């Protein structure tokens, strides 16, 4: 059986090799992404020891349904985005390989401190990638917030270690289940803040506007799909499966999540630049998914997460491409742009409609799933907040789509003569990539039974209240 540590080791090795053989950097990157995407398909579920020390003393990698689903989507998306934007990579091939190793480590690890290390590796690659827009003050801002956040995460986990004497997630969750919840308030708040910086929860997301708002067609989809997806999956792992929250703390964090959802969507409503609309929509979606994870609805949260990242990969690729080739991504200046780029326009439209949750697209399946889950909770305000968020999201996304397809003034008959003269170019590789992604969204929406059947086993496992990952404490006996 193949050991999943290869998913971390191979990209790291290739990253070192790519420093020695600079001429082959991009080939090595594509090779690493291909090997990783292939390896994921051959993995067997289970628990893997690193270094021979049995948990809870040693570090272990945990490959359960949750981690497997995450690895499949993250590695697949990484490969597709790399192939789509090969011409944009430039100096960053080594950084991207390290990022791939870090992202896989985040999803696989079963140890809180190991998670911190991978969090930092991933974050450092994100700082470097964000600097490719040459807007260094935003990268600096991100670096300061990110370092402070992961420092607070480290603070939280060391408090847990001081109280419970373990860093292994499975061991900790067993010990915390019987603990007094008042002991957990400060550590869980610190860990929430630490992860909140990366998953864009409201008071900690000041870096997002500068970094996402200047992203190109490589960095935009990478951040909004691959990084955001991995970080949210980590958040779900910690808060839905490891740390039990007391009733008051849970209400407070749920309120923060709901506030992020509404504030993000409202901010997106008031923007006119496409990337800004999409980045605030990302913040709103993060708020929604965090809320679902905190409510214990793991399976609907993961479905909605996949809907969000698949759609955002398409939307940010097109938006980044618009900004790269025309120098602007203002919706007004680009009106009617899809009249000349119909295929890209169709992919963009499918992704946008799927994000809102329109029928025929995968987003509908995930949205109906999460609404059933939310209405079955004993909570009277959460369904209303989520529906309100969806309405706002629908308003600005459909307004944006109409603007990009139909040039002209609002309320008047559209005419070709109003269409943009901006020299928009979309490379064939990018068009192919986004067509593949939107086809996935379309097939997922037309044949929900297929997804339901294939994921129902994992879904059942994900929704159990007990920790879902395999663990087997063998040390010290």
């Amino acid at each position, binding site marked *: 059986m193949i050991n999943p540590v290869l998913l971390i080791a191979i990209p790291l090795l290739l990253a070192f090799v790519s420093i020695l053989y600079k001429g082959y950097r991009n080939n090595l990157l594509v090779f690493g992404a291909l090997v990783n995407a292939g390896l994921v398909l051959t993995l067997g579920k289970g628990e893997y020891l690193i270094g021979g020390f049995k948990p809870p003393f040693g570090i272990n990698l945990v490959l359960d349904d949750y981690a497997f689903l995450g690895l499949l989507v993250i590695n697949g998306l990484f490969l597709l985005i790399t192939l789509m934007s090969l011409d944009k990579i430039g100096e960053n091939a080594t950084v991207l390989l390290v990022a791939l190793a870090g992202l896989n480590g985040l999803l696989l690890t079963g140890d809180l401190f190991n998670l911190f290390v991978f969090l930092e590796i991933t974050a450092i690659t994100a700082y470097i990638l964000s600097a490719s827009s*040459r807007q260094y003050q935003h990268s600096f801002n991100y670096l300061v917030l990110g370092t*402070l956040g992961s420092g607070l995460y480290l603070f939280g986990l060391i408090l847990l270690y001081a109280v419970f004497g373990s860093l292994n997630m499975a061991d900790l969750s067993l010990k915390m289940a019987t603990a007094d919840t008042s002991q957990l308030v400060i550590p869980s708040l610190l860990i929430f803040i630490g992860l909140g910086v990366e998953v864009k929860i409201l008071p900690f997301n000041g870096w997002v*506007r500068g970094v996402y708002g200047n992203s190109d067609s490589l960095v935009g989809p990478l951040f909004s799909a691959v990084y955001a997806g991995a970080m949210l999956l980590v958040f779900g792992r910690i808060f839905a499966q490891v740390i039990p929250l007391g009733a008051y703390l849970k209400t407070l964090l749920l309120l923060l999540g709901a506030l992020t959802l509404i504030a993000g969507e409202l901010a997106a409503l008031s923007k006119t630049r496409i990337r800004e609309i999409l980045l605030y929509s990302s913040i709103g979606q993060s708020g929604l998914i965090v809320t679902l994870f905190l409510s214990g609805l793991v399976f609907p949260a993961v479905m909605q997460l996949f809907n969000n990242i698949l759609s955002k990969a398409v939307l940010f690729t097109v938006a980044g491409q618009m900004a790269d080739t025309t120098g602007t991504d203002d919706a007004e200046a680009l009106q009617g742009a899809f009249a000349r780029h119909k295929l890209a326009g169709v992919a963009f439209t499918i992704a946008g409609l799927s994000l809102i949750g329109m029928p025929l697209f995968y987003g509908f399946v995930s949205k109906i799933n999460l609404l059933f889950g939310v209405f079955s909770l004993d909570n009277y305000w959460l369904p209303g907040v989520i529906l309100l968020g969806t309405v706002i999201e629908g308003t600005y996304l459909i307004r944006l789509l109409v603007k990009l397809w139909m040039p002209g003034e609002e309320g008047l008959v559209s005419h070709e003569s109003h269409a943009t003269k901006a020299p928009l170019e979309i490379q064939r590789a990018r068009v192919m990539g986004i067509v593949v992604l939107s086809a996935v969204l379309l097939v997922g929406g037309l044949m929900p039974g297929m997804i339901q059947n294939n994921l129902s086993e994992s879904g059942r496992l994900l929704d159990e209240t007990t920790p879902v990952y395999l663990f087997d404490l063998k040390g010290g006996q």
Partner: protein
Amino acid sequence: MIQYAGILLILIGIYGLLTETNLIKIIVSLNVFELGLNVFIISVGFVREGVAPILTSVNNHSGLVFVDPLPQALVLTAIVIGLGTTALGLAFARRIYMKHGTLNIEEIGGGIND
């Protein structure tokens, strides 16, 4: 007692992050914050009159009181990571200086395309 020193340093670091406007001083504040964190982590493993967890000819039986070695290993990792982020932060600060000719964040401007 040593953990209070760690928490004090963490608070000084956060105060510096909130009040300083010079990029270099912000990085220094970040380092003070990380230093406080490291001191705190070391204090978690501290045992009064404990010895280093190494069996030698002098300390040769397991009935001795040992200091917890795990926090020290964690701090070693955290220091290395802190070094990496500090170096990257300084590189960004230098690039910002080359572009804007100042290290003061109030003069750089926070607009999305500044």
